[in-house]
């Protein structure tokens, strides 16, 4: 029996108002995360992975983006469940930073350049947990130590520009963890980092996640990163989840042609040499991602899909059970 999910998204549809009409960036999205579980949302540009995480956080761009329908049920630390899709302003702010921690791609967008690192980590502790200035400052130094920043007392007194990119991302993780959130949302947290620093940050996130038993929603374009960090993965294409399941299962036996093509497109170390010798091109997915404003009829992936048949253009396929905990939005999944 699965534990009650901490986050349960049903039928989410998020639209953007562009040129006088609503364009769906996310459609028919269903996703749940159990306590202590890490779920990765993976996809290319325009897949809707970041819009999904912004919808959960209530950070869609004002006036342009909105949740058109669906529910986002989230159970906070107090045990109370709220529908985030129905909440606004002040009530959402109480949840963000307290029950939900956030880490973004570019640490400088989350860090304020005119406050010291220590002050910024202490602020949510004072606001959400009601600690004194002195206590909060001490907690901040402890958090910096937890995220592997050497000499944390000195670093707490420094400004963001005095830290390297990797250190800054550690500081934003400390800030996200400050109130001991039940859910951490990490949106491309290692994309701006060098690969040796990315390895450090992934290791850190896995460590703090395990220590705290926190749930994590990890948004990334990098399938390799998914393999490192996540228990389950949801692969998105043109605003919809096309396949979801346990990471090992999905990567070993993809049940959607897009997942299969994407996995084949990732260069594998040492394999290209053999292809080069044989004069074989690297595997690719033909064509490019369709515009959300002008999606093809039926399955959005059909025009690029080597398995497409006439029936694919009739209707958007449903996400169906493909066994082993996998769901696939492909009418031919059994033949894959």
């Amino acid at each position, binding site marked *: 029996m699965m534990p009650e999910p901490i986050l349960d998204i049903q039928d989410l549809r998020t639209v953007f108002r562009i040129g006088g009409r609503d364009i769906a960036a996310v459609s028919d999205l269903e996703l749940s995360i159990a306590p202590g579980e890490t779920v990765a949302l993976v996809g290319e540009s325009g897949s809707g992975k970041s819009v999904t995480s912004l919808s959960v956080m209530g950070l869609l761009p004002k006036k342009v983006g909105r949740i058109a329908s669906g529910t986002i049920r989230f159970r906070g630390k107090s045990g109370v469940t709220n529908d985030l899709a129905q909440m606004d302003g002040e009530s959402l702010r109480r949840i963000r930073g307290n029950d939900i921690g956030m880490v973004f791609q570019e640490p400088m967008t989350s860090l304020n350049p005119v406050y010291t690192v220590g002050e910024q980590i202490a602020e949510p502790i004072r606001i959400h947990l009601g600690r004194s200035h002195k206590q909060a400052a001490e907690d901040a130094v402890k958090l910096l130590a937890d995220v592997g920043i050497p000499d944390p007392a000195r670093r707490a007194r420094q400004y963001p520009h005095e830290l*390297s990119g990797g250190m800054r991302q550690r500081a934003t993780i400390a800030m996200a963890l400050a109130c001991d959130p039940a859910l951490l949302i990490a949106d491309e947290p290692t994309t701006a980092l060098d690969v040796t620093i990315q*390895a450090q940050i992934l290791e850190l996130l896995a460590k703090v996640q395990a220590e705290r038993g926190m749930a994590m929603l990890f948004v990334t374009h990098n399938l390799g*990163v998914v393999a490192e960090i996540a228990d389950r993965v949801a692969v998105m294409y043109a605003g919809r989840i096309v396949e979801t399941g346990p990471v090992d299962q999905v990567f070993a036996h993809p049940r959607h042609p897009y997942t299969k093509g994407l996995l084949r497109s990732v*260069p*594998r170390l040492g394999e290209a040499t053999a292809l080069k010798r044989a004069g074989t*091109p690297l595997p690719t997915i033909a064509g490019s991602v369709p515009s959300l404003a002008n999606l093809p009829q039926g399955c959005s992936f059909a025009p690029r899909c080597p398995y497409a048949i006439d029936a694919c253009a009739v209707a958007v396929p449903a996400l169906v059970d493909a066994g082993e905990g996998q769901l696939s939005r492909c009418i031919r999944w059994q033949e894959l």
Partner: protein
Amino acid sequence: MTEQPFLSVTGLTKHFKPAAFSRGPVVRAIEDVSFEVPRGKVVGLVGESGSGKTTIGRSVLRLVEPTAGTVLVDGVDMTKLSARELRQQRSRMQYIFQDPFASLSPRMTIGQILMEGLEIQGVEPRETRVARAKAALAAVELPADAFDRYAHEFSGGQRQRIGIARALALEPELIVADEPVSALDVSIQAQIINLLRDLQLRLGLTMLFISHDLAVVEYICDTVIVLYLGRIMEIAPAETLYANPRHPYTRALLSAIPEPIPGRTSQRQVLVGDIPSPANPPSGCVFRTRCPLAIEACAGAVPGLETVGTEHRSACIRNAEIAAGAIS
């Protein structure tokens, strides 16, 4: 007798001095870099931030003035040319940029973008320019009607094809491709690499391929150079580098690349610490502060590139121990 390499870089060094009247350290972007690229071959320059890979690419075309060293392109020393001679020599070389959104003018049609360079080089008459631009579009597998359209009408992958077409229209012999696929989605990256490989072989182009990602360069490069803080750590034929990396940094870099293979994580070797600033590089071996194999002697002197195999060189004083498998 071996043929003279098309590109020959010797002792290339670039120090960026702080702007006039401002205090600040000298940034040692590249230090004493030497390598050769035979005609019709592709050499990859790979490294993380601050490795100097882009500065090398720019110095080759003399888009930045090197502090020391020589750059011979087909026997001509780029560093000694006058402005006029340089313009002439540069017509044989082209640069492909990372960001296909920033490098194409939004106000010009693709045709105008492709013909601009030809006009500057005095290719006459206009019909010839049109023909060459259209041939370049065909070479990158874009439809002919792209000629009259604007950059914003194209996707990222298509724009990168336009960037490549612009370079090809000038019929260069040497191309410096600076992170040409880094801004693209993974399903498009492989399309562009296949295209570049195909064009390079068909046209016999000599190429420097700059990337932060060792996984991306394997297919297209004949030789790979691994850089760290402005210095060459290892240089080897591509097939050797991936099968038998010698330098501790190359090994760490390969191990850090996440791959979508469940269970691979366990063998991961994570380097500690940050990349030092090129304004204040460590003494001796620049990698020693993060190297799992560093010993006291590493701080003493800059290790030279030693031959460790066929066309395979590594800059590590513990090369012999690594080769013997005594340490890893």
